[in-house]
């Protein structure tokens, strides 16, 4: 909840700060002179400054709540309590005697184990204790075990730091709090602060260090590039096969009644089936090797490409077809010079969608079963609670997916410059 409120505050603050800083430096282009902008979609342009601040805000927030070394200390959210602390507890025996004992605790950062400090037993029947606790953890402490009169003899703890405590109750201390369980045992619970434990969310620098490590040393017998390369290879091969079959199928459906009638039910039925739902069947049929994954991606791309090619053909302006025939074109020439080029914009749109779906499907398929691949990497890492690898994998998958889309858009601009301009 707190991170969300901080994020909203950052959004609002950045808006006003940027507004203040850039006041008076407005460009006088045509769009800026429009008085009606609310509701005019063409007047809304993505504000680059906002985009940059948005990315910085996420990294700052991530760093602040993980105690990242990338940020100066004052930006960090309060971390967990570490260091030494003490509290006293009061024991009352069955016959009404009371005695105090002091507990010394050492809270050490997780991953750096430390021994509990040695303390002298002290006076009275309740002896002093010492406890070592890792940060973010709490500890049930049987403090009576070294006492002369313990729980087994009818003694019970009645106060902590002089404040009375009963089973189920708790007492706040300077290091956090002490809670009494229903059976009368004290649970020492040092303050966890607002930061995320590395096992939930590692600091950004840890993720990037881990990325460097895996890039040089590899992960599970394969280098990072092999993992990513295999995922990409599956996508490219599966998509290429899907396009190779789907585009001619779509053309046939767009040009022949019989083909349209025969394949319409199949295509319309298969289109809404999410490729992920096919994973179990494909594994049963083709196993978990490369074959199964490529079949899955082929099926993911096939219907999208067939439908794109079909609508590309049906979308041709009949005047163009008539014009080509009256200019003396044969059927083959009509296909080559009119139908195919006219359907390219639709096919490119379909290809972009298909590549996106394939990339998502391959990662999901690798999550289920694979020896290598981006999805397998994050799945295995999650089993070992290597959250840094999981986050690294997610970032890489996102970057590659974005890269694929950019590449397709670029190809579209170069190859079908007439798209949307007729």
């Amino acid at each position, binding site marked *: 909840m707190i991170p969300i409120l901080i994020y909203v505050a950052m959004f609002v603050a950045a808006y006003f700060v940027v507004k203040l800083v850039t006041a008076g430096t407005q460009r006088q282009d045509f769009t800026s002179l429009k008085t009606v902008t609310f509701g005019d979609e063409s007047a809304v342009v993505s504000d680059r400054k906002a985009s940059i601040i948005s990315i910085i805000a996420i990294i700052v927030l991530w760093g602040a709540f993980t105690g990242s070394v990338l940020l100066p200390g004052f930006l960090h959210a309060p971390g967990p309590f570490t260091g030494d602390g003490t509290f006293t507890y009061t024991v009352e025996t069955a016959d009404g005697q009371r005695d105090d004992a002091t507990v010394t605790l050492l809270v050490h950062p997780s991953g750096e184990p430390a021994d509990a400090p040695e303390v002298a037993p002290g006076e009275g029947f309740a002896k002093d204790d010492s406890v070592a606790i890792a940060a973010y953890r709490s500890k049930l402490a049987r403090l009576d075990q070294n006492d002369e009169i313990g729980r087994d003899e009818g003694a019970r703890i009645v106060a902590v730091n002089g404040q009375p405590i009963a089973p189920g109750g708790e007492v706040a201390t300077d290091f956090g709090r002490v809670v009494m369980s229903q059976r009368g045992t004290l649970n020492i619970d040092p303050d966890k602060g607002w930061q995320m434990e590395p096992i939930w969310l590692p600091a950004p620098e840890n993720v990037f260090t881990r990325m460097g490590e895996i890039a040089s040393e590899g992960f599970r017998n394969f280098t990072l590039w092999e993992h990513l390369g295999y995922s990409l290879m599956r996508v490219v091969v599966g998509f290429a096969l899907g396009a190779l079959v789907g585009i001619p199928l779509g053309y046939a459906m767009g040009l022949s009644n019989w083909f349209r009638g025969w394949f319409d039910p199949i295509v319309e039925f298969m289109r809404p089936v999410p490729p992920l739902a096919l994973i179990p069947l494909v594994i049963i049929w083709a196993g978990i090797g490369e074959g199964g994954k490529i079949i899955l991606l082929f099926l993911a791309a096939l219907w999208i490409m067939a439908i794109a090619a079909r609508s590309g053909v049906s979308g041709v302006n009949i005047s*163009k077809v*008539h014009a080509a*025939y009256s*200019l003396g074109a044969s059927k083959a020439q009509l296909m080559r010079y009119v139908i195919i080029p006219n359907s390219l914009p639709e096919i490119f749109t379909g290809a972009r969608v298909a590549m996106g779906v394939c990339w998502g499907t391959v990662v999901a398929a690798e999550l289920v079963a694979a020896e290598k691949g981006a999805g397998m990497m994050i799945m295995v890492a999650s089993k070992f609670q290597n959250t840094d690898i999981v986050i690294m994998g997610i970032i890489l998958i996102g970057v590659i997916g974005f890269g694929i889309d950019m590449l397709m858009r670029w190809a579209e601009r170069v190859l079908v410059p007439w798209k949307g301009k007729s």
Partner: protein
Amino acid sequence: MSGLSIEKISMRFDLPNGGSVQALKDVSLHLNEGELMSVPGPSGCGKTTLLNIVAGFLAPTEGQIVMNGHTVTGPDAERGMVFQQGALFEWMSVRDNVSFGPRMKGQREADYRGEVDHLLEVVGLQEFKEKAIYELSGGMQQRVALARCLANDPDVILMDEPLGALDALTREKMQSLVLKLWKETGKTIILITHSVEEALLLGERLLVMAPRPGRIHKEYQLHFADMGVDQDLREVKKHPEFAKNREEILGMIWDMEEEIMGRTEAAQ
């Protein structure tokens, strides 16, 4: 017999609701080589259907089109067509659009280059020949369409509202261009138009069609097209006979429209 004969064409097709439409009934006429016939008429009088039958895109239910002694069975390079808009190939440059016909015949670039360049010169697009279609204005695009049709050297040019989507000024310039090209090339032209004025200006013969069923209502022989070849078209329009003809034809079309509306109301 040379020229183009439309022989007793009737066209009737069934509707999905069980009824049928008689789009054309017993339309017959003969066009000599080099004649320019314009066809104005109220919407729905079957003039576009007639043009599509002549082009070979539709088969008539009765009658036939005979051209240079053979019966028309489908589209052919001997009958070129200029469409209202959207018939150019956006994926080709202006030059490739214009040279489409010769290229489809398998001619080599050396064979058609001179003719294509000449036509681009005539329609005033020499500087734009490497441009993409979507970079041109609407009037320029129609000039490309005209040049593309002429580059294929058809015997008959069928024009389906070629200037309908242009603004008034561009339209006037294009009308002069059509007249000029007609005189220079001596092609037989059928021009479908919504504009009675345009039909009068360009048509050597003018065919008024009546709707339901589509049929020939009246034919005029005019001399405004000849006047327009070497006169400003605006001067031609000032001719008293021009105004008289225009009023007469407009009146005719008005009457037809009213009759249809009356009939529709009576049917309801």
